[in-house]
């Protein structure tokens, strides 16, 4: 009886050690999965998913730290695409983070702009052109409508319009 206990404990220790060694030699490669997930996200870099951009959110999904319904701009279509890719249940959009609005563009009322460059630093895709104390303007074809430039503007001269320029983005 003692022999059985000894044999089994030695066996268990040996296999455990081997698996531990193996685990370190075979690191999980989550980045290729994150790329695939990032491909499905709408890339508005708006941060409504509580992550600083689409790429960080994709990495969070890849390492299963974030659910797949935290992307309001993507809406139902993105959730369906992520569910198909990852083989998970389709869950409804988490609406506290924001609604799925049609594509929109930020437009600066140029006469009120005081040139404080706060919005330039806030824009995640460098879509705002301008220098300090000079008039700023938004490059329409590059703007993703992420609304990040609205809060920092001291004179609140940026408003959101329906995106008619790159109509296909809608």
């Amino acid at each position: 009886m003692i022999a059985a206990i000894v044999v089994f404990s030695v066996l268990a220790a040996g296999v455990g050690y081997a698996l531990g060694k193996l685990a370190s030699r075979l690191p999980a490669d989550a980045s290729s999965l994150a790329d695939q997930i990032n491909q499905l996200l709408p890339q508005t870099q708006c941060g409504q998913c509580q992550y600083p951009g689409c790429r960080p959110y994709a990495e969070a999904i890849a390492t299963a730290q974030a659910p797949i319904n935290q992307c309001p701009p993507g809406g139902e279509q993105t959730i369906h695409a992520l569910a198909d890719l990852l083989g998970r249940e389709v869950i409804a959009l988490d609406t506290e983070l924001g609604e799925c609005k049609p594509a929109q563009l930020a437009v600066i009322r140029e006469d009120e702009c005081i040139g404080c460059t706060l919005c330039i630093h806030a824009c995640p895709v460098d879509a705002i052109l301008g220098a300090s104390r000079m008039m700023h303007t938004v490059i329409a074809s590059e703007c993703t409508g992420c609304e990040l430039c609205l809060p920092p503007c001291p004179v609140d001269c940026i408003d959101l319009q329906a995106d008619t320029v790159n109509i296909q983005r809608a």
Partner: protein
Amino acid sequence: MKPQHLTNRFQGGLVVSDPTATKVLPVIATGLPTTVVLPLQTSHNSYTPNVDSGQAVLKGQRLDHLTPSGASPLLAPTSGVIKSIARYACSQSPGGAVNSIIIDVDGEDNWHPDAQLFHDWHQLSRDSQLTALQASALIGHGGGGFALYRKLTSATKPIKTLIVNAVECEPMINCDAALLQTAANDIIAGAFALASLCGADNTVIAIENGKQQILQSLVESLTDNTSNNMTLCVVPDIYPVGAERQLVEVVCGVKVVAPDIPSRHGILCCNAATLAAFHSFVSTGYPSLRRLVTVAGSAIQKPANFDALIGTPIKDLVDIAGMHSPMTAEHSLTVGGSICGTGFYDFNAPVLANTNCILVDKPDKNPVTEVACIRCARCSDVCPAELLPQQMHRHIQAGKPEDAQAFGLDACIECGCCDQVCPSNIPLTASFRDSRATLRQRHQIEIAANESARRYDMRQQRLEQKTLEKNRRLMERKRALQKQTASTEQSSPQRPDADAIKAAMMRSRQRKKNRPGNDSTG
């Protein structure tokens, strides 16, 4: 010149016995319409106008800024005053209304001074010939709607064979047959000119087996301008043998699968009407702004081919052709042939460069009801592109067009064969057309999203670079400071003495007194 009867054929297709094929409809020349409409957004071109309402324009004048390189310009078909630039009916856009330039015709029809692009075609170098062709805005009259210039320049391999597509395999379309009968020499001359332009070493005129009497007239006109490298082929009349890729497969034995195009295999396929227009352009130097349009259908009294100005509202042609009973909402309007034609809703829409046939049909007495698909695979038997329409339909109906791509949705040539044989009367081609449009739109969104992702990554790198740079500089300054404090500690260990400080304070007070001095003690 004995015509070669070709027997090889493509998979599938419909054997169509069409009574109207042999009877060529009369050609009626039409004068100038009262208004002319030019859509700014068509299937392959979009224009930004450089004119505004109220401005007078002359015939052949350019009306747009040439945005993308290689795009063909928009020319005024006749002289007149621009009434407005507003949304107007259009037969090509599914939504129905598109921003268009509407011109009130003044009737003089005088050319714009620099409308004539050259005087003698043969003196021009090959490049100036190409730029002239681009400026002439000659768009293919077949049905595809690609500009001839774009077809030539998109050829990655040198063109070896030029096929003149005089095949009119779709029932009810008659304009090419009429053109072959009246202007066979123009077509042949146009074919020669294009062959020399694109350097093709043999030219093939393809015509359908069913059109015997036109065949005779072609054989005679071919024998009088004798040339060795032009042959006449007679192809079996199986719909859609007139489609570009199917004709290339029958004539050259090269199977081209959409979205690949024959010009990438050294074969250029051009419609006969395009070549006739090319000939008139080459011989006169003026862009050709007219084309033959067949107006027919069960509701038309006298079906005929109309030599109409591009931009003429279809209503004018239908009024000339006359209708049995006045037009009602139930009448079905189709642009294109009766198998792959697309319906449109407002017959004020204009004639475009690739509008070859207008069908006006009486309301259908016994409309067929659509039933569920029973997977009988007849549609995949007749599909000329060898696809699986029944599988594509299943995935599209389940709302997943991207899954249908695995069964060949991108290679679909929208020929309409599957609709004709479907026992459940499912509008398959319409659903494929819509799904392809949605997928094109999604592809555009994906490109835009990738662009945003690229910009985001670049910005992240730049910010990282900046913080690294800042840290590095900080480290350097700290190290320099430490070095400097270490060196000062070695040379003078004690604190600088008190009187040196007092002397410094005395000097500063003195300087302060001098500065106010200039206004008080001088």
